[in-house]
């Protein structure tokens, strides 16, 4: 797997990544949850930077880089691919911050403009309707996670969005593994409930009505 810590943007020779067809790439991008990536970017930027740096730009640029590089790498699972994309995102955020600082000082590195994607034609990254859907989903996800009680929220956020392992979460939050697992399940249930209240649960039928115990849709 390419290591984004050592510059993912330049370690892949241009033209080396042409393995996935547009359809395959689209499914690969969808499988890592682009809306969730937006949530991660927004949380990493924080409110102060969100006004200066566009989270969607970061996502688009990261996906462009990922598309360029993904064919040269073998990913064991969508999770591994997503972890790689997350690290690219980190680099893009750093670049964006540097550019932002440089612009203030009157210079700065020019980042890839949306218009330049045309020739690369990265599927899954550019159609306005898809972007709008991701934006909307991201807003709902961010709101849903915020409405999970604080003691459970952090575990869910780190596990689902930032993709940390349970041991890492336990170390970071100073909890036992048992407690992390317990909070994860309870938090996940609440998170799903909030998603459904917002109407983006997977099961439209479950978003209304009483829960069915023992039935196929009951959790």
């Amino acid at each position, binding site marked *: 797997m390419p290591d984004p810590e050592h510059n993912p943007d330049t370690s892949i020779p241009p033209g080396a990544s042409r393995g996935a067809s547009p359809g395959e790439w689209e499914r690969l991008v969808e499988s890592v*949850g682009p809306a969730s990536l937006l949530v991660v970017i927004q949380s990493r930027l924080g409110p102060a930077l969100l006004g200066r740096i566009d989270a969607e730009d970061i996502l688009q640029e990261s996906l462009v880089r990922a598309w360029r590089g993904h064919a040269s790498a073998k990913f064991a699972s*969508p999770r591994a691919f997503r972890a790689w994309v997350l690290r690219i995102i980190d680099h893009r955020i750093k670049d964006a911050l540097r550019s932002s600082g440089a612009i203030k000082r009157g210079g700065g590195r020019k980042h890839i403009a949306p218009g330049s994607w045309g020739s690369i034609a990265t599927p899954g990254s550019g159609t306005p309707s898809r972007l709008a859907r991701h934006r909307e989903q991201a807003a709902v996800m961010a709101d849903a996670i915020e409405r999970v009680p604080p003691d459970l929220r952090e575990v869910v956020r780190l596990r689902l969005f930032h993709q940390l392992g349970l041991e890492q979460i336990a170390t970071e939050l100073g909890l036992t593994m048992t407690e992390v697992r317990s909070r*994860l399940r309870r938090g*996940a249930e609440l998170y799903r409930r909030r998603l459904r209240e917002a109407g983006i649960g997977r099961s439209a039928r479950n978003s209304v009505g*009483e829960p069915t*115990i*023992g039935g196929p849709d009951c959790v």
Partner: protein
Amino acid sequence: MSESDQALLDEAFDRALSSWEDGAPISPDKLFPDRPDLSDHADRLLALARDVAVMGAPTDPSPAVPGYTILSELGSGAMGAVYLARQERLGGRSVALKVLPAGAAVSARARDRFQAEANAIARLRHPHVVTVHDVVREGGVIAFAMELVDGASLHDVIDHLSSIGTPPRTEDVRAYLGSGASVLGEIPYWMLVARLGVAIARALEAVHGAGLLHRDVKPANILLRRDCTPLLSDFGLVRDPESGVATRAEGFVGTPAYASPEQLAGGIGATDAKSDIYSLGATLFHALALRPPFAGRSPGEVTAAIERGAVPVRTLAPGVPRDLETIVQKAMSPRREDRYASAAAMADDLDRLLAERPILARRPGLLSRGVKLLRRNRQAFRGSIIGALVALLLVGAATFGLVIAPRWAQGARERAWLALLDPRDTSTFANAGFFEYRFPGPPKVSRDVVSRALAEYGKALRFQPWDDRTLLERDALAAMLSLDASGRGPIRFSEELLRRAPRACAWLRAWSQIPADSPPPPLPPDLLASDELIALGMMSYATSEMLPAVEAWQELEHHGEPGAFVRAGLGLYFIYSQQHGRAYPRLEDADRAFRGVSFLRAAHAEAAWGVGDTELAGTLLDQARGLESRDEAQLMRVGILVDLACGNVDDGLKRFEAWYFAPRIGGSSVAGFQVGAWFEARGENLKALCVYSNSINNESPNRCIRRFIPLAEHWWSGLSERERLAFLEHAISSKVRIKPWELSRVPVSYSGLHSFAGIGRLPADVAGLLHDTEFARVGSRLYSYFETGNPGEPGVPEPPTGEALHRAAREVLGLAK
């Protein structure tokens, strides 16, 4: 479910989540391979994991179902999804296609259910059952194409009506569904619901006629076309006795709010057609009242609610005709035999209602209910006449045994407790709480008090000889009487006490054998049994070892069984240890339990003062003054505090001065501390110093010392040499021991504390506060002028004057040779 099972679920959930994230969802059968009893949870955990995973196996938006083109997803459940699809063969009509793709992450049981649903629904043809056009079983895919209903579910409709906030109207339903104005005409809403009831009851008739049970009739499973035609749908829980699917004992399935009592109870063969009738009744209830008949999300909660009985529909929806209420009530009868015999019978009765003919269902009258009761219990009725006579005799005995005797026993117990608590006879609480130290040696609770309490315990046991707790308290207290006046001697424990509280007995035996000035024996570790705690609490209290008692009592509180004595004891302890927030709830309880005891009411008042409710404190104090068992010192002290807090400062201070500085009375050290703290809070540090100093001269409570030392050092260090000399001249010439607001004794008190610290009489934390050795020396030299008595008394020399006084002051200050 046990904690270990919960932990298994937690662990399985993470595995399920990871499997989705890895794009290869784990098979439900592999989630709990060694725990088949948890397999029911597998599908649920997988569905939860799938729903929250922000990534997962790329879902194919169009699973291949031969003969259909999938257009979009309408919704999905734990198994499979429902798609909007086009049926290619029949002119491309739109259908709702429910698909369970090959390899979907569901258990074999869930797959069986899906199959059963497909089979069942395909066998039914009824205008009010959602139509299945086609069932596909190819290449591992199971799917069935249903009519695409263009309206909404009854649940959605009810939700919408609830959100409007006005009584439901048919036109609101019509508007919600987008129906034309002509569809329903101007019928009242209840009539719409009754029509719906007829249609679904007929649908159930067909279902039952096909040998099936629906088992999940509820508003969400009734779909309404735009023209308001109701359709029964979702046969996901259908039971097909022939196929054997879902017939085994599997616990509760269904939706609690609409499930019949027998369905909630579960078990093989528990449900039958009448269970569906019940659910339809509950659904109609919800539609009419806009809320389900019983609240509760779990079977247990709903079962409990059913036992309490449903509120009649008309109390929630007054516009509903009485006959419709009767029909709903009959359908929802808790006893199966009281419900309609069949769905057809229910439909017929609803039809009669709509045709304005008399219905068959009858509201059970009082007389008919009584007659039915007698019929059901004919044998019992014969016996009851004889029984009534016997019962009459028993009632008399029971009234005494259950009402009078317990009341008398409680009265005696309370008198025993009050004897032990009364501050006029024992100062144990104040000693332990306020002075922060124990009084080693003989018990401070006198033998008189113990004997009086024992006598009352004896009376209580005469009325209720089986009362275990009274027996235990009595025996624990009685053991104290076997000690001699010095707290020594072989202790005699009753056999009952030794059996029920052996470790508490061992503790008291150890206590009676230690030297008087040794610390008390440690509490037995992990002492959690209630009997042990009750006995230990009583014994340690009676030996004046309050801290073990407080510990045992607090543990009893955690057990949830402290009793009024323990609440009062802890409340008093916390009052004296100045923890008013902790004292307040306990004294409030105790005051209420003992009903009008002055010292408890006054303590309650002090707690109220301590938590800032001065007004309540004043009221309670006034009441305490008029009650029995008055402790005058306590009333005086709390009265002063309330006066100061209410702004009656002059009155309060005048009373305090007269009481606290009076020779041979000395007020109370607790009052000294509290008033000193009040001065400090107002920034009047010199007055605080005077009060603390006096308190230290009397009883040296650590609480005062802690506050006195820094104040005294700060004051002395702030004086110039000239001021110090002037102060000392005044102190030497005044030669008084006690005088209100007099600072003369402050250096002497400070010096005394130094001496105490030198011989180890102060706790380390208090001794560590003393810094100014020179100030202590000044106090020590000044002391010699004080202990010779007041001027004018026989043998007491007159204080120096003039130059001699000046010289004496310089000597005290250490300036003269």
